[in-house]
């Protein structure tokens, strides 16, 4: 072959793929020649492989024809061609039929072939074997596993690994041989002096053997423990990957049963000082990912120390991995890695931007209010040098800081404004900054005016419509209540003059809201003038909006006592969008008749501005908390991308959405029951409360629904038995205080028949006096059991069944049921301003952590934790929890400050409550636990 044609084949670098059909035809012609030209065939196969590697594929019939042609090359006893043939068979095996035709030829090579082709042959053998033919390869694989040649042994081990899903029993039969490989240190059989230049062996077979053994013994905990014991002693494992694999194995065992940490502690700390960086890393990663309470502080500290040392090694990948682990720890327990701060700070200027970004975000988490300012300064210096993806990570970190350290808003705001105004960056990046600023405006009231002013500057030169519209909306919402509303009007009107119709429409809406500003008649007048001017706009939408706004303003002026127009201009309420969507879907999917009655908006829950803020803040807080835990349970190797999505995700979590929908579903069910029609709308619905063990015969959960003058207890009962149905299931609820006058049972709606593994609902309704009634109910399930015919699943004829009862846990109507969490910007001011106060002290003897107490308090009071006090520091014995909520009955506010101290005797709580309503205040404070 001339150099010219040879070159034509070697176009791998140029990226130009050879033509598929040409390669196909050439292969068929060339491989069926007699005799074949090995060199040409090799080149052809390499072109074929190049095509397949680039994602090209052949139809099954063509692939099969190709496979058969390739199989004809077995007649050529040429080692290098044979290697190519094996590669081709491997690739074609997945897209071609009848690959088993190559079995005998491959097996012959494994038995008698040269050492060069044996590993290739073994690897392609697993691709052609199936369940029925695998057993015939057992002897071959076994002898390959024990081969003295490391490549052959490795190939056999890895192939066996791939054979597991096909024929596990075959692989199991040479488990002992596999185990021997680990202790048998194989070296390459160099004959001449070349061993001086090449390493004798990497002992990689050890790694492959351990991997295979782990898979084989996957379900046998004792065997795995023995494996760890056997291989961790002495200096048996030479290969670092093998050691890493062993650490991973220990990790798997520990995640299944964290109790065993103490047993492995010595081993783990040994690995922390391994001579291989990867082993150190893996061990540190494992230790820091275990649940806190099982890991001794010393071990954790040792792991952090190892990571700290790894931060300053020359190898980039190691530094990256170490900082990544630290970053993960920083999400849950930033205080534990504060020691690494000096190293992390030096990494800020690391030449690798990925490392520096991780270092920064970690520092932002470990940061205290003292060093924030200096941190921000450092970030400002380099943020423009990194890619948008990493910028967004940093912005998200800054955004959580805004919520964590509201008092540092100034430097944070400066930073955000600064990066926002530097022209570079795409939509995602700018959007995340604007999101962060929105958070500041909403949850840090002090920063509002400065932030708004800067946003005004920003929209003067903003290229993204979406962002502009959102900012205009925010200005309209927040602007009228600021000290100097007219300032914003100018900026908004500029948009009307300069921008496209979408933005003009948004600006009109924002503008109209300023007409509601009280005590500034000139401003209102100017707004009217502006709107009138706009009503000559060229665009329909803009004109319409301006006209409507003018009309509304007019009607407010003429009839100020009517709030309809005001409500339309400046919405006080927003709907629960999830509920609205499901209601609308329901309405749309029903039959024609329902269209006769208009859609009832009143059935959709509405939120006031404060309530909405409370919900949003709660979501943010949960995200802060949920992100690291979900990551912990998820795969250990999550890409930066996935993390980014995780943290910038603003919508409600899936579970929470489920909860919201559950409540709507319950409400619908109750609304459809005749007996409850007179009760009016539901005021509050609690979460599901488990009243039995989940593995009980009958699983019961309870839900409390509050009406104005009624209480409905809903019991969801599941029959977990397989052959018994329950008839006439009812729940008898006895109030703890007998003859209580405040509650009077009205009606019980029993379940007629509960079939096995079905869930049904039983309701018990009480009439209650107005006001907050607190009561505990002792509950008993009454029912008649019916044996079922196992064949027909029908009750036996004539089986009377017998009466039975079943005690379930009590359900408590507490003060918390009358409360809904609410948001307030300035907690301490609000706390001081509330008139009635109450103090109570509790002593808790249980041995639980402060965090457990905090969680329990938040659930019991149904209040919203504010100022980030829902996280109790794990390194301190004291904590102060701040809670805020509103009564669902009267709307009275309640603010709570709970101080707690943990000592050896237990936990002491001092709760101080302030409220508009003395009764409510007392109830809450005295019923905390």
């Amino acid at each position, binding site marked *: 072959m001339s150099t010219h044609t040879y070159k034509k084949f070697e176009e791998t670098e140029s990226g130009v793929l050879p033509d598929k059909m040409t390669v196909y035809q050439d292969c068929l012609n060339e491989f*069926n020649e007699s005799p074949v030209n090995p060199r040409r065939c090799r080149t052809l196969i390499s072109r074929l492989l190049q095509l397949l590697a680039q994602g090209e594929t052949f139809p099954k019939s063509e692939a099969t024809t190709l496979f058969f042609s390739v199989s004809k090359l*077995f007649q050529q006893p040429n080692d290098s061609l044979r290697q190519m043939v094996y590669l081709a068979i491997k690739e074609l095996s997945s897209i071609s039929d*009848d690959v088993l035709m190559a079995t005998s030829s491959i*097996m012959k090579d494994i038995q008698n072939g040269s050492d060069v082709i044996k590993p290739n042959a073994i690897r392609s053998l697993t691709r052609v074997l199936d369940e029925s033919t695998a057993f015939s390869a057992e002897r071959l694989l076994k002898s390959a596993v024990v081969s003295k040649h490391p490549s052959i042994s490795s190939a056999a081990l890895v192939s066996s690994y791939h054979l597991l899903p096909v024929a596990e029993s075959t692989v199991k039969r040479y488990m002992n041989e596999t185990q021997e490989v680990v202790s048998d240190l194989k070296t390459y059989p160099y004959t001449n002096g070349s061993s001086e230049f090449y390493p004798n062996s990497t002992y990689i077979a050890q790694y492959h053997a351990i991997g295979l053994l782990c898979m084989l013994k996957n379900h046998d905990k004792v065997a795995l423990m023995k494996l760890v014991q056997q291989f961790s002693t002495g200096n048996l494992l030479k290969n670092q990957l093998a050691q890493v694999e062993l650490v991973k194995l220990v990790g798997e065992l520990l995640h299944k049963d964290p109790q065993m940490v103490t047993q492995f502690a010595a081993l783990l700390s040994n690995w922390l000082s391994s001579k291989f960086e990867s082993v150190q890393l893996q061990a540190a990663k494992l230790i820091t990912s275990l649940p806190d309470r099982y890991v001794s502080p010393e071990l954790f500290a040792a792991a952090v120390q190892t990571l700290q040392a790894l931060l300053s090694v020359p190898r980039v990948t190691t530094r990256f991995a170490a900082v990544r682990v630290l970053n993960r720890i920083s999400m849950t327990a930033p205080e534990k890695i504060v020691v690494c701060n000096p190293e992390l700070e030096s990494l800020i200027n690391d030449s690798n931007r990925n490392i520096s970004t991780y270092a920064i975000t970690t520092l932002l988490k470990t940061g205290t209010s003292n060093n924030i300012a200096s941190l921000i300064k450092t970030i400002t210096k380099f943020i423009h040098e990194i890619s948008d993806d990493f910028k967004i990570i940093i912005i998200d970190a800054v955004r959580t800081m805004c919520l964590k350290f509201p008092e540092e808003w100034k430097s944070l705001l400066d930073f955000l404004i600064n990066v926002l105004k530097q022209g570079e960056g795409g939509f995602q990046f700018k959007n995340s900054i604007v999101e962060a600023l929105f958070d500041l405006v909403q949850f840090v009231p002090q920063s509002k005016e400065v932030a708004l002013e800067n946003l005004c500057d920003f929209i003067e030169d903003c290229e993204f419509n979406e962002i502009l519209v959102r900012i205009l909306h925010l200005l309209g919402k927040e602007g009228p209540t600021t000290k100097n509303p007219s300032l914003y009007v100018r900026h908004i009107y500029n948009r009307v003059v300069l921008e496209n119709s979408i933005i003009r429409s948004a600006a009109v809406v924002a503008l109209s809201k300023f007409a509601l500003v009280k005590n500034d008649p000139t401003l209102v007048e100017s707004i009217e003038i502006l709107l009138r001017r706009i009503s000559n706009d060229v665009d329909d939408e803009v004109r319409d909006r301006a006209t409507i706004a003018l009309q509304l303003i007019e009607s407010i002026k003429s009839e100020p006592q009517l709030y309809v127009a005001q409500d339309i201009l400046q919405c006080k309420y927003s709907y629960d969008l999830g509920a609205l969507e499901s209601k609308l879907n329901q309405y749309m999917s029903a039959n024609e008749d329902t269209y006769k009655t208009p859609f009832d908006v009143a059935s959709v829950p509405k939120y006031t501005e404060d309530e909405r803020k409370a919900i949003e803040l709660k979501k943010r807080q949960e995200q802060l908390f949920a992100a690291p835990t979900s990551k912990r349970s998820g795969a250990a190797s999550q890409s930066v991308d996935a993390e980014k999505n995780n943290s910038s995700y603003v919508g409600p979590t899936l579970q929470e959405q489920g909860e919201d929908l559950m409540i709507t579903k319950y409400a619908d069910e109750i609304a459809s029951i005749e007996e409850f029609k007179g009760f009016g709308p539901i005021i509050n619905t609690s979460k599901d409360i488990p009243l039995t063990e989940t593995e009980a015969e009958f699983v019961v959960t309870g839900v409390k629904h509050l009406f104005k003058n009624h209480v409905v207890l809903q019991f969801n009962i599941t029959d977990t038995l397989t052959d018994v149905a329950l008839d006439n299931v009812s729940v008898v609820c006895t109030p703890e205080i007998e003859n209580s006058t405040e509650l009077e049972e009205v009606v019980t709606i029993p379940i007629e028949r509960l079939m096995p593994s079905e869930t049904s609902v039983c309701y018990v309704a009480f009439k209650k006096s107005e006001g907050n009634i607190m009561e505990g109910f002792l509950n008993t399930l009454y029912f008649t059991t019916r044996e079922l015919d196992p064949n027909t699943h029908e009750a036996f004829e004539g089986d009377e069944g017998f009466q039975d009862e079943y005690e379930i846990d009590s359900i408590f109507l507490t003060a918390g049921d009358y409360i809904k969490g609410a948001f307030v910007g300035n907690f301490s001011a609000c706390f001081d301003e509330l008139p009635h106060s109450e103090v109570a002290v509790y002593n808790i003897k249980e041995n639980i952590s402060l965090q457990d107490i905090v969680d329990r308090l938040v659930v019991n009071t149904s209040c919203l934790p504010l100022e980030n006090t829902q996280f109790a520091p794990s390194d301190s014995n004291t904590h102060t929890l701040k809670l805020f909520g509103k009564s669902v009955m009267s709307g009275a506010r309640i603010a709570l400050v709970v101080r707690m101290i943990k000592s050896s005797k237990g936990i002491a709580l001092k709760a101080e409550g302030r409220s508009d309503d003395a009764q409510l205040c007392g109830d809450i404070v005295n019923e905390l636990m």
Partner: protein
Amino acid sequence: MGNFFSSMFDRLWGVNKELRILILGLDGAGKTTILYRLQIGEVVTTKPTIGFNVETLVYKNLKLNVWDLGGQTSIRPYWRCYYSNTAAVIFVVDSTDKDRIATASKELHMMLQEEELQDAALLVFANKQDQPGALSASEVSKQLNLVELKDRSWSIVASSAIKGEGISEGLDWLIDVIKEEQL
């Protein structure tokens, strides 16, 4: 220069050309044993062939490319993938397996109808003559209906691959025919 001439002669006499020969037959007839008897002159222990074995051997100055295809029912459909450019077919029959000789006959005639094998010579080995109760070559020939074959050079030879009897006789005949007809 001498080299050049010798290679010219080789090409003229077809010495350099490889001859493709297929060994076919039902499973357990002794195909693989015959192949290795030809190649290394020894009896090897064999397993049922899943797929095929291929060996190159030089016999009487001819380079033979001998393909031994598996005889199991599941593999027989793939025989046709290897028919092209075939100079001769060696069909091996287990002379003791009277029950399946009809099946063997059916497979043989079906194979010979293939277009690609129209010019191929046929050699039938009535194998396993060392075993008691084996049918003789003429009996096998009758059972296989070989006389019906028209336009084809064929021959049947009684053989025992284990003892090495009849194999070279058969092959000698085959080579002669090929040389005569195709070179």
